[in-house]
């Protein structure tokens, strides 16, 4: 067992332990680590957004390639600074309006196509199916999607004869889907914890597995 002498490994280890102290109870050390993360993340975001988004999309076209049309988005973007002054902070609504307009406009046809049409199209029964298994699967998919949609239908009481059973099937499938994502979340959360423990044991304390 030879403990690491690398400064960065020690920093990583101490920060990991600081966060683990929250398991005992919420304490100043944990809060300090949490605020350190919030600060670093905001600083990191500023640099990455500047280098990967602002510089290539605003600075270069406007100031280097002299495309003066870019003055408009640049000025609109500067209006975001007014959020620091309450009296004139309503001005952020103009760049927001442009982004909202473009965003909403682009999303309507695309969302209808990919979320609504595509998902229902691939659930419609399209025989012939090669074998019995794919017949059953296609049927479950079709009944499943229809019953989930009926479950989230609010214009008819659920105790009507036909609707009651279908929405029960829908709820059953929803629970099955939640169980599946519950299971995979358990695996994922443990992978993260095992990753941290493996770092502490292997890289920091240098305990090689036997």
């Amino acid at each position, binding site marked *: 067992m030879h403990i690491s002498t690398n400064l960065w490994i020690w920093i990583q280890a101490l920060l990991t332990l600081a966060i683990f102290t929250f398991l005992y109870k919420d304490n100043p050390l944990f809060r300090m680590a949490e605020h350190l993360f919030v600060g670093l993340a905001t600083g990191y975001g500023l640099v990455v957004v500047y280098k990967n988004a602002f510089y290539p999309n605003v600075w270069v076209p406007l100031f280097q390639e002299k495309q003066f049309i870019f003055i408009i988005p640049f000025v609109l973007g500067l209006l975001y600074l007014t959020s620091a002054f309450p009296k004139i902070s309503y001005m952020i609504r103009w760049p927001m309006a442009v982004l909202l307009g473009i965003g909403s406009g682009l999303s309507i046809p695309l969302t209808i196509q990919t979320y609504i049409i595509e998902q229902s199209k691939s659930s419609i029964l399209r025989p012939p199916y090669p074998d019995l298994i794919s017949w059953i699967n296609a049927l479950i998919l079709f009944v499943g999607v229809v019953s989930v949609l009926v479950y989230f239908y609010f214009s008819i009481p659920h105790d009507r004869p036909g609707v009651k059973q279908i929405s029960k099937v829908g709820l059953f499938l929803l629970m099955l889907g939640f169980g599946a*994502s519950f299971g*995979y979340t358990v695996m*994922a959360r*443990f992978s993260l914890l*095992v*990753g941290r*423990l493996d770092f502490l044991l292997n890289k920091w304390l240098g305990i090689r*597995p036997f």
Partner: protein
Amino acid sequence: MSVRDFFIKLSKIDRKYIYLVILIGLIIPLIFPPRFPQKMSPQVKRVFEYIDTLPKGSYVILSADYDPSVAPEVHPMYKAVVKHCILRGVIPIGMTLGVQGAGLALDAFTEAERVLEARRDTDYVFLGYQAGGAVVILGLGEDIKSVYKTDYFGTKTTDIYALKPVKNYRDIALVISFSGSALPATWAVYAYTKYGVKVAAAVTGVSAGDFYPYIQAGQFIGMLAGMKAAAEYEDAVNRILKEKGIGKFSTSAIRMMDANSIGQLLIILFIIIGNIGYFLSRRRK
């Protein structure tokens, strides 16, 4: 104290003890790995066998679109696939659409050099990071060397010996997108649907569920999902290494997956015990 009281008391113990049980339950297998033998699941087998049966000298693009926060699950997959390609004489072309992926991919290729004496620009090529996401994916369909004028190390892509016969996706047998986000879907839409190149995904366990629609629609040839897939692939590559008499194995994913398995079994145990206590106490009321 009857059995019933024992279970009721047991299901009410303080959460600190539960944390202790979990901590010990994970640390022991990390130090004394039980090395449960692996068995390849269907999706992993599809990707493994596809690469395993590629003719010598074919090309595979490995896009490291993940960052350190999902490294425990995805990085061992990248390292295993790089070694698998080189062992089969297939030339992996490393690249990344995310800034942080570059450092991780580089680590995988340096390990391949150490373990397999792989030679840069002959046994593998590493092109590094390129901004633009979908625009880059589209560009590779036209001309890879115009999208990447130089590789990660600054060498001109036109001078790289291994890249001589490669122009665009027509010369690529498979593209694998390693990611913790939805990028593999972007590869499916822009690379497969538009240019017809075969695509596979290597993703975290949590996001696995979201890619099944693409598998069902035939846009992915297979998927590596979560730590379990990483361990299975790593084990398969270790077997090839043994065949070729190369001693240096990597067991990081296998070891971590053993610990993961024990953690997951503990969860099942806890739910069962907790519910026994709950039912017994409810009947008593």
